[in-house]
C-alpha cells in the first residue's frame, strides 16, 4: 500500500463539473491511501478569513480583469458572451482530482473509505489557526419562495467558526444580506449565481450576535464525492446521480465506506464541497461550507468479484458505516440517461420528494433481496418495521431520500 498526497492547487482542482475528459492528477493502485486537500467554493464569501494568506487558495481564487486562474466554473458553455461567466456556474463545487485508479473499468465498483477528515486552518495572521465556514441561504434553497419577512426574496450569508475541541461544534460569527456583486470581468451577480465571486465587504452590512447561544454539533463530511459519469463530457456537479457526486449526506464522514459504480476507465474520482455540519434536507441550499483535508483509502472491486458481496448488482451509490447501510433515492434515478440532451436544465424542473422516496424504496428492496437473500415479502416487512427513510436534501435539483437499514438487524453483523 502506497500513501500519496494530493494538495489542492490551481492544477489539481476542477470547478463545477465532472468530466471523463479530465487528465488524472494522480494515478494509484487499489489499496492505496491518498491525503486530499479540498477548498470550499464559498471561501470568497469572507476572503479575509478563508483565503487571505493561504497561497493555494489565493491562487485558485485569483481573478482580476486581466487574469482568472480557473476560468471554467460549471458545465455550461466556455465561450462568451456569458450570462454569469465561463461554464455559467452550471455546477459550483470546487473539486480536487481526478484520481485515476489503475485497472478500473466500467462495471467495477470503487470503494472509498474515509479514514480521517480535518479542517484547513485560516492562514491569515489575524485568524491564525482558526477554522471558518460559510452558510448561504441561497436562491436554490427550499425557503426562497416562501419567506415571511421582507425583503423577499433574499439571500443571507452566515459565516461560522468551527471549534475542534470536544465536543466539536460550530457557531455563527456574523451574517450579511447578499448585495449585487460585480466580478472583475464586469458581470454583475444580483444573486449567488456564479461560484467564487469575491464578496466586496464594503458593500455589505455585517450583522453580529446572531444565533447567540446556539452551537451546532459538528458533522465533518464531504458533500461531493464521486466518479466520472459516462453519459456526457461535462456534467454539472449540482445534481447527484448514479456515480455519486453532490450527495450531501452528512453520514459520508470519517468511518464511512462509499461504494460507487465505475462508469469510465480509471474511475476518475474527485472530491470537494466539504461541510462542517448539515441537517438532513440541507434546507437553505447549503451546509456550513468549509475547507477540509481528507485521508482516503481506495479499493477497486472487479466486476467478477461482486457477486456474494454487498456490491452485487449495485448501480447506484451505497454507504456503509459501523451501524448502517444506506441507499440513495433520487427524483430521477439516472437523470443523465433519462432526461436526454438537455438533462442539465430538465433536472431543475424534475425535483420531487415523492419520486425520490419511490426510488429509495425500490433500491432498498433490491438491496435486501440481492445482498441479504430475502424474499420480496420479507424485504417489505423488514423495511416497514426496521428501515428508516430520511430526507437527504431538497436543494440539489435531483432531490434525495435515503433509506437506511441497521446492520445489527442481521445476525451476521
Amino acid at each position, binding site marked *: 500500500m502506497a500513501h500519496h498526497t494530493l494538495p489542492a492547487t490551481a492544477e489539481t482542482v476542477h470547478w463545477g463539473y465532472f468530466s471523463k475528459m479530465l487528465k488524472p492528477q494522480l494515478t494509484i493502485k487499489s489499496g492505496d491511501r491518498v491525503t486530499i486537500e479540498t477548498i470550499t467554493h464559498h471561501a470568497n464569501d469572507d476572503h479575509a478569513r478563508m483565503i487571505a494568506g493561504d497561497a493555494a487558495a489565493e491562487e485558485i481564487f485569483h481573478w482580476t480583469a486581466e487574469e482568472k486562474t480557473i476560468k471554467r466554473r460549471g458545465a455550461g458553455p466556455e465561450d462568451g458572451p456569458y450570462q454569469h461567466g465561463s461554464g455559467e456556474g452550471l455546477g459550483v463545487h470546487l473539486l480536487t482530482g481526478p484520481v485515476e485508479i489503475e485497472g478500473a473499468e466500467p462495471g467495477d465498483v470503487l470503494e472509498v473509505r474515509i479514514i480521517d477528515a480535518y479542517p484547513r486552518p485560516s492562514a491569515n495572521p489575524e485568524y491564525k489557526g482558526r477554522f471558518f465556514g460559510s*452558510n448561504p*441561504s441561497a436562491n436554490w434553497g*427550499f*425557503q426562497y419562495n416562501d*419567506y415571511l*419577512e421582507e425583503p423577499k426574496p433574499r439571500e*443571507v450569508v452566515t459565516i461560522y467558526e468551527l471549534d475542534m475541541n470536544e465536543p466539536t461544534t460550530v457557531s*455563527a460569527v456574523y*451574517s450579511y444580506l447578499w448585495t449585487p456583486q460585480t466580478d472583475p470581468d464586469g458581470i454583475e451577480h444580483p444573486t449567488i449565481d456564479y461560484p467564487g465571486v469575491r464578496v466586496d465587504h464594503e458593500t455589505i452590512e455585517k450583522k453580529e450576535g*446572531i*444565533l447567540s*447561544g*446556539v452551537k*451546532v*454539533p459538528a458533522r465533518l463530511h464531504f458533500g461531493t464525492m464521486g466518479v466520472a459519469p459516462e453519459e456526457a463530457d461535462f456534467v454539472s456537479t449540482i445534481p447527484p446521480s*448514479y456515480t455519486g457526486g453532490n450527495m450531501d449526506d452528512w453520514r459520508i464522514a470519517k468511518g464511512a465506506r462509499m461504494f460507487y459504480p465505475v462508469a469510465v476507465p480509471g474511475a476518475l474520482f474527485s472530491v470537494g464541497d466539504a461541510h462542517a*455540519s*448539515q*441537517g*438532513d*434536507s440541507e*434546507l*437553505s*441550499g447549503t*451546509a456550513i461550507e468549509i475547507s477540509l483535508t481528507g485521508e482516503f483509502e481506495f479499493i477497486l472491486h472487479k466486476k467478477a468479484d461482486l457477486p456474494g458481496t454487498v456490491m*452485487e*448488482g449495485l*448501480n*447506484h451509490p451505497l454507504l456503509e458505516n459501523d451501524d448502517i447501510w444506506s441507499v440513495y433515492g433520487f427524483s430521477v*434515478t439516472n437523470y443523465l*440517461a433519462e432526461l*436526454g*440532451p438537455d438533462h442539465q436544465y430538465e433536472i431543475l424542473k424534475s425535483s*420531487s*420528494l*415523492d419520486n425520490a*422516496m*419511490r426510488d429509495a*424504496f*425500490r*433500491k432498498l*428492496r*433490491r438491496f435486501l433481496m*440481492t445482498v441479504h437473500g430475502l424474499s*420480496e*415479502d420479507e424485504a*417489505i*416487512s*423488514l*423495511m*416497514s*418495521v*426496521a428501515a*428508516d*427513510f430520511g*430526507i437527504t436534501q431538497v436543494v440539489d435539483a435531483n432531490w434525495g431520500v435515503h433509506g437506511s437499514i*441497521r446492520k445489527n*438487524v*442481521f*445476525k451476521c453483523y
Partner: protein
Amino acid sequence: MLLRTGLAFLPSQVQYKLTGASDAPVGTLDQGMNIRQFISESYPLDTRGNAWRDVLAALSLRSDAPGQDFDQFAAALIRGQAEGVLLGKLTATAQTLTPIPRKGRLPLVLMPLDETIDVTAETAGFPVAPGEAVVLPVDKAWEVVLHQNTNLAVFCLSETALHGQRFGLSPLTAPVTVAASGFGNVFLQSLRAAAAELDSLNDMEWQSVEQVIPDLFLTVVVSVSSSTADASANASQAALFSRLTLAIERRVAEADLSAGRIARQEGISERYLQKLFEQNGESFTHYLRERRLQHARMALVAPDELRIPVSEVAYSCGFTDAANFNRLFKERFGLPPGAFRTNHLKSLMEMANAEQRGWPVKALTDRKAKKRSAIGGAQADETELADIPDTDGTHHVLPANSRTVHWGYFSRSLRPVLEISSGDTVEVETLTQHSSDDPELFIKGDAAAEDVFYWDADRKNVDRRGAGPIDASIYGRGAGEGFGVHVCTGPIYVNEAEPGDVLEVRIDDMVPRPSGNPDYDGRYFGSSVAAWWGYQYGELLQEPKPRENIFIYEIFPDGDGSGFARAHYAYRWTPQKDPFGVSHKTYDYPGVPVDPATIERLSPVLSDISIPLRPHFGVIAVAPREADPVDSVPPAYFGGNIDNWRLGKGASVYLPVSVPGALLSIGDPHASQGDGEVAGTAIECSMTGRLTVIVHKKGGIFSDLTYPLIETPEEWVLTGFSHPNYLAEFGAKGQGEVYAKSSLDLAMKDAFRKTRRFLMSTHGLSEDEAIMLMSAGVDFGVTQVVDGNWGVHAIIRKSMFL
C-alpha cells in the same frame, strides 16, 4: 367518456379496471393513474432483464438484451391500456428491437429524442434522427438498432381505440419515416410533448390526449404510407371518413338514422358513403349497429344511469324494439343486457370494496345533505361511565374492555370513560387491532381481548369499527366500514382542558402485554401486515400480484424497554369470512378473526434477523372539532395516528385542545417501526402505558401550537403533514380527499414552515437565523407514507441551545 367521468367517486384504479374493456392493464398503477413505471434499479440483477422484456412486450417489442445478467440501466414510463392507446417514454442502452407480431395492433411509432437510431427492414435500411419518427408495421419483419443510451417516445394503439376507423392503414408494408415537416411535424411535436408530460396529466387531460394523438396519427399514417401521387387524396378521404364516423357518434340515438341522412349532412352521395365504408371493410348498417351496441353497453353501467330501465337504454341508443335489442346485445357480448349490468355491479362492489380507503368523496357529499346520523357504539347517551378504580385520586387505571374502547374513529360526542385532572397519572391498557391476525396468540385466554374482539353470528361486542355508516351501506364490510381501524382506549376527560389549551401527554413507561394463552404463557407477540394500503402494493415484483402478507413477530423485551423482535411465522392473506358472513377479500375491515385452517404458514421467515424494539403508541389523539366521527387513520393537527416511533417511553406529545375536556384517546401500540412505515403497519403489539397528563393553559410557551409536537429528552420532533388540517381544508369531503391527495413534497413544506415558526417563537430566532439553523442542524425525515395524510418530521436537537 361519460362513463369515466361518471365513475369519479371510485378510486381511479377501479375506474381503470372497469373501463379497460379487456381487463388488460399494462402493469402496476401509480398514483391512481393507469401508468406503468419501470426502472432497472428496482430489480435484482437476475430478474432485471425479464422485467425489461415484459415492459417492451406491452409495446409489442422484443429486445436482444440478455434476460439474465442484464446490468444496463433502463427505464420506462408508459400510460394507457393495451386495448386502447399506449404512450410511453423509454430509456434504453445499446440494443436491437424487433416486433412481436400481434393481431389487432396498428403500426407502432418510435421517436428517438436524443440519438439517431437505425431501422432495417427486408428492403432497405435508414437512420431516424432525433426529432423524426418511424412508423413500424408490427406484422412485418424489421430491426431497430440503438447504438448507445437513447431516449425514445413510443406510441401504439389497438384497432378498438379507433372506433372502427382504419382507413388507409392496411397498405403499410415496411417501416416509413415521419419527417419533421408539415403535418408530420405537428404529429411529432404533439407526441413529444405528450410523452414529456405523461405523469403530470390528470385523468381528464389524459383522455383528451388519448383522442387527439390517434386522430393525428391516422392522418399522418395515411400520408406517409401512400405513394406521393395519391397521398393527399387518401388523406382527404381519411378525414372525410373520420367526419362521417363522428357524425354517427353524435346521432346514434336517432332511431331513423340512415346512410342517406349522414351522406346529406356531409354533402356527399349515399353511394360514395357506402363505398367509403366498404373500403374500410364493413357496411354502414353493420357499423351503425356496432356503435349503437357499444353505446348501450357503456350506458348500462354508467353510474348515474344505473336506475334507468334497460328498455330505455335501448331506446336512447336508437333501438326501437327491446326484444331485438336483447338478442343483438347477447349475440355481441355474450350476456343479455340485464345480466350484463348485474354482473358489472357485482364486480364493481367487489373491487371498490377491496381497495377503497376512507370515505368515498361522493358518499360524503350525499351524507352532508342528510340529517346527522347517529354514531352508534359508545355514544354519550348509550354507555355508562366505566367502573374505574381511582386509587388515590391522582393515579388512575384504565383497563381495556369493550366499554372503554372505541374502534377506528375519534369523536367529540363520545362519553368519557375516565375523568382526570391535570397532573394525574393513568395506567392505560391498549390492544392492537391486529390481535385477530392470530386469535390463538393474541386473544385466547386474555379476558380483555376476548371481550373486545368478541364476534359471533349474532353480535359483536364492539360493533362500530370506523367512521363510516353504522349500517355499512357503502361497501357492506361491516359497521363503520373500516374507515379507521385503530382500537383506542378512552376517551379520557381532562378537567381543566379547554379549547385553545395544550394537552401534554407524557409516556412514563410502557410494557408489552403478554399472551393470555397458557400455551404461550408469558410470551409476547406482534403482527405486521404488508397491506393493500402499503407503499409497495402497486409495484410488487414477484407473483402473485397484488398480495397481502401477515408477519407474526415474537417480542423479546428486556427490563429497560429495549429488546428485540424476531419473525415467528408469516402467511398470505386469504379471503376471510367474518362471523356475520361477509367475505373480506383483502384486509379491509379490522378485527376479522383469521381462520387458521384457511391460511398456509410460512416458517422460517426473516431468519437470523432481529429487530431492535422501539416501543411507542401509534395513536394519541384529542377529539377533533370539525367533524364527528373522524376516521382514525389520517393524522392531523389533533394528533391521532402519528406513527412516529420517537413517541415512546420518556417522550411527551403536546396536542392542541379542541373540545372541553380534550377527550384523549390512546391506541395502536407498536413494538417497533421504521421511518416510513412502508408496508402499511408497524409491529403491532398490545401494550400498557403509564402516562402523565398535563394541561398547559392558553398563553404559555405553546400558545401558538397547532399540531402534535413531540418532545424527547434530547430532541424536539415536529410533525409535518401533507394536509395539516385536512378536515378544515377539504371541508365535508375531507375524510375522502385526504387519501387521494397525499404527497411528501407537501409534507416537507409543512414541516419546514412549522419548524421555522417553532424556532422563531419558541427560541426567539429571526427568520434568517431559523433558516440557517434548519439547514445546518435540523434533520428532516419521512414519518410515514401509508396513513392517508403522509408525514415528514423535523428533529431539533436540544443540545444546540445553551
